[in-house]
């Protein structure tokens, strides 16, 4: 049983987000980490390997050299191999093109179960893995907070708006991670040292058979037209006095000033 986890090297949103002169994300000032949702998926995959439900875990990422720290982190957590698709022709690609790219790479990796994040914490488009499942003609189950593999099927607990659903699906399948799926481990120094010996394969689009007409700006179905920093919310005031006074004044303000009651 081989699991491949699609991971994203994402902008650390705790850090400062700055825009450059053209109103695009200033990537020189951004710091990159493994996206937290990808990380939940990697952790779960490794736990499945440790429990004997899977034999091998690999990770797949689209990105340039800047995505190596995220990949190394996944290898240090316990993934066995990493694959990266790096091609300048990908610039300006939308979710549809990235999905084609991931799907083509996944076809080149021999795997039985595909995981990923249900969205990414930075761009939060939340559509990539769903699209990948359609391209590969596999069933998709999203927002999983529990996954087990049994008898060639994935047993999934999925979060819905007002509760949980329990489903199962035959493999191969695509399942995406939500917070709560697995608490990611912190790799220790020996794991980090060991990860340096694990294989990292870098592919171009040509290596995986992606038609250049399907990627890049000209193929994009959605285009970012403008990008600007949202004005920060400005704080109001601290209510003075004893708790009883502060509370009374606040409630009065909610009625009379903010008028939200």
């Amino acid at each position, binding site marked *: 049983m081989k699991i491949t986890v699609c991971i994203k090297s994402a902008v650390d*949103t705790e850090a400062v987000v700055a825009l450059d002169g053209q109103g695009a994300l200033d990537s020189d000032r951004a710091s990159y980490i493994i996206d937290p949702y990808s990380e939940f998926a990697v952790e779960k995959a490794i736990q499945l390997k440790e429990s004997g439900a899977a034999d091998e875990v690999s990770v797949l990422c689209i990105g340039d050299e800047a995505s190596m720290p995220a990949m190394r982190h996944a290898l240090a957590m316990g993934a066995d191999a990493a694959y990266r698709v790096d091609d300048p022709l990908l610039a300006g690609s939308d979710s549809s093109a990235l999905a084609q790219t991931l799907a083509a790479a996944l076809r080149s990796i021999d795997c039985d179960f595909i995981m990923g994040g249900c969205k990414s914490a930075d761009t939060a488009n939340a559509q990539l893995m769903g699209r990948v499942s359609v391209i590969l003609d596999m069933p998709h189950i999203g927002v999983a907070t529990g996954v087990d593999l049994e008898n060639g099927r994935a047993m999934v607990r999925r979060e819905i708006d007002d509760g949980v659903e329990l489903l199962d699906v035959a493999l191969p399948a695509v399942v995406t991670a939500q917070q709560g799926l697995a608490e990611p481990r912190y790799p220790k120094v020996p794991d980090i040292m060991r990860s340096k010996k694990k294989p990292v394969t870098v592919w171009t689009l040509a290596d995986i058979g992606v038609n250049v007409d399907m990627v890049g700006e000209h193929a994009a179905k959605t285009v970012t037209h403008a990008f*600007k920093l949202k004005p920060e919310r400005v704080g109001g005031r*601290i209510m003075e006095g004893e708790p009883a006074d502060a509370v009374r004044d606040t409630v009065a303000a909610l009625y009379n000033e903010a008028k939200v009651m």
Partner: protein
Amino acid sequence: MSIWVFAELKDGAYRRVAYEMVSKARSLADERGCDVGVVVFGRAIEDPRQQLGAYGADQVLVVDDAALETYMPDAYASACVELIRAQHPEIVLFATSSIGSDLAPIVAERLDTGLVTDAVAVESVEGQLVCTRQPYSGKVLQDVVFAEQAIPHLVTVRPKTLELAIPDENRSACVLVQSVAGFGDVRQNIRDVVRKVSERAELAEADYVVAGGRGLKGPDGFKLLEGLADQLGAAIGASRPAVDDGWIDIQYQVGQTGKTVAPQLYIACGISGSIQHMAGMSASKCIVAINNDPDADIFRVADYGIVADLFDAVPLMTEEFARIKNA
């Protein structure tokens, strides 16, 4: 030419976001001189029209089948794709809900078209559809447009961001029962659905939210908040630490990895105000923070800050609201 809204029924009634989307679809349709169709899937749907016409729908396209009783990704996607291919709407709006967020990307890929997710604004600018979303923990406003060939334009819309139209009770929609050739190979097998039924308002659509964090010191802290929430008819929310520590279920989590809310009033109790939490609630019209740490980040965004022990302040606030109501 039409603009469609995919509307979800919950316990027989449309979610509020359906009416928000219909209102927007109506204004877009008026500009383009086309119709608004609302697509509804389910089983034994009693009253498919409800108020949809009043908010601007022209037709309600109903697919009523046992296969659609519960949301099944494959079945819903097949039916949706078949209807769209047959009738060619220009734009289809879905809610950013557990169903909409799951369904829309599958439908988009099967139709080989574009999708903008979690839009907080949808406008027509010089005839072009422009959707605004808020990536990077809500720090950035991103305007997205569709390529000409990306028809239909698919959008998932965040609840409580589009304005509700003033309903026109003289307007009604007609019901058009649809049949689909099949639901395809439905590969997911649902074993159980466990709904946390609550009398309370649902978090994503609530006008008032009372939320708790680490300052509650344990699951019992939420009982204190329930008293206040009851007084206000509010939903309960939580920050991630409270959920991670098992004090409350993840469905109540507000924040980057939880739900995004935009109530009239958000009362944050014992919540420090991390960036991730703020990403989920910064669109609230008014924020009240109760925290005994005067340096807590939450006070930087709260409209009204109360530096106090929440175990004193919350009961005091509950009493004060009760006093005013009974006065």
